[in-house]
């Protein structure tokens, strides 16, 4: 899986790493049990401080996306169904996206079609291997 990190963007680098790994797992490009590079390896490749990568991995670990092992490093975790996945925080973020689209003049129909297409592109992928 290829990560594309925008070094001059507004989104912090650790957030970009976290987001792209989440996207990779959701679309099946990273399978359960896949090994991620070590903090040092990835930091060396991107050219950032290891603390930046460590922060991204810590976030992913807290969210249960990856597991950290002393011997095997970081590994993609088995997906767990959470009862409270669609919580108030999720609603807040989704509402923000929808509001932003409306402010830019996107019609309801256009937005529904687009969102359904995006849902299809992610849910259509085989995640478990």
């Amino acid at each position, binding site marked *: *899986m*290829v990560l594309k990190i*925008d*070094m001059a963007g507004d989104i912090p680098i650790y957030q970009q790493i976290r987001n792209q790994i989440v996207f990779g797992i959701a679309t099946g490009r990273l399978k359960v049990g896949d090994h*991620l590079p*070590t903090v040092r*390896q990835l930091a060396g*490749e991107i050219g*950032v401080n290891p603390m930046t990568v460590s922060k991204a991995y810590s976030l992913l670990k807290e969210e249960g996306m990856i597991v950290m092992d002393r011997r095997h490093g970081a590994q993609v975790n088995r997906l767990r169904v959470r009862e409270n996945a669609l919580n108030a925080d999720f609603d807040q973020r989704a509402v923000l996206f929808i509001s932003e689209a409306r402010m830019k003049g996107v019609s309801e129909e256009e937005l529904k079609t687009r969102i359904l297409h995006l849902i299809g592109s992610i849910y259509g992928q085989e995640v478990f291997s």
Partner: protein
Amino acid sequence: MILLFLVILWLVFGIMAAYSLLYRQYRDHQILGITLSGIHAQHSGIKKTVSSFTRTCYAVLLLSAGCCFLLLIPLIRNYAEFAMLLLIIMNLLANWLVIGYYQKKLRHIKEENNWTYSRDNTITVDLNVAREKGKSSISSVWVWLFLLLSFVPAAVLLFHSETQQIYPIGLSLIGPFCQLFSVFLYYRIRNQRSRILNGETEDNLLLTRQEERINSISATLSALVMLVFWFLFNLSMVHAQNGLLIIAPMIFLIVALLGIARWQQNKTRNLEETLLDGQPGEEKIQERQSTWKWGCYYDPNDPRVFVPKRIAGMGWTVNIGRPAGKLFYFGILLLVFFILGFVAYGGMKDYQIIVQEHEMRIDAAMYDMTVERDQVASLSVTDQLPNGTRTNGYGGANKSFGHFSLNGYGKCMLYVYNNVDQYIVVQLKEKDPGYVIINGKTIEETEALYQEISRWLSE
């Protein structure tokens, strides 16, 4: 001595020319630091410019080599060290101007043909490639072994105290220090960022593995060359009586390092060509901002203090965009100016030998000394000095002064004009130094000085 200076100058000019010529090779989508796609690099205008650059480099080399003969003119010969530094600076400036001029020409061709590449500041990393990092390189055991072996001359010196007279043990530790630098180079080359060809992990992995292999082999070979150079240098220091022979290990080092750099470049280019072969259309490349300012690497956004030189495998340079890099760079610059200043001052300042009531004072750049009358054991004159080595002093084309170790004399203080074949030998009662050897600018001056010292001793 002048012949030695000429050889050193030709060597320096040769390195500069080779460095410039390696820089013109198409590698990592760049020629002379200007981004060009593979197809655009084959454009007739680009090819013509590169050929013209090659010819100009050779012209600068020939012109610089020819200018060295100016050192044979007696008037310039008197200031040989200063003239030598001036020639080196002029050669560096000429090469720098030539590179700058041809970079402008390449940019102009790009603008004329409207060749633009994307300018986004995105870094692409393949997670599978990152995970494989370091697994295809030559083992680091070799470079550590070479480091260990570089201590052999120092260990040999420990058991040969006589050799320490002409070759101080402190000097024998310079080799391990340089060897340690090659260990550092090995790790930096091995861990440098992998390049991503496309979205296919297999292709990216193949490129990274092969490139890592090539880079680690060249780093290991460089470390081996450094070790062989160090052994040859030690042998020439201890056994060679002819100063010119000391140049031979240096020639070996430079030729071997340039050979390795060229091999590395060719292998990497062939690998790129093989992997890109058959891929449809123009490869997606990014316009890279020039991170070179005044001949130095300058990128405040790059967290690295030490970065590879423009030609990989040729060593490392400092990122002057970082505060630590600035400090290091200006520290080195200060040191260089101090050495240049010392060489210029030492080369121009004449010795002043003042004989007073009960002491003889010798005033020379940084190596002043005073001899009390009761310290002197004997006084004599000789017209030839035996071979020896400088342990801590100045050895120029016209003058030699400071601490020397001469065969048959042992530790001496020298304040002599090399082209005057008459020397006053003042033997001291002590052993360190055992002798003070002086002379004047002419034989007449030397004779007058001898008479003056004789009178002073007999008072």
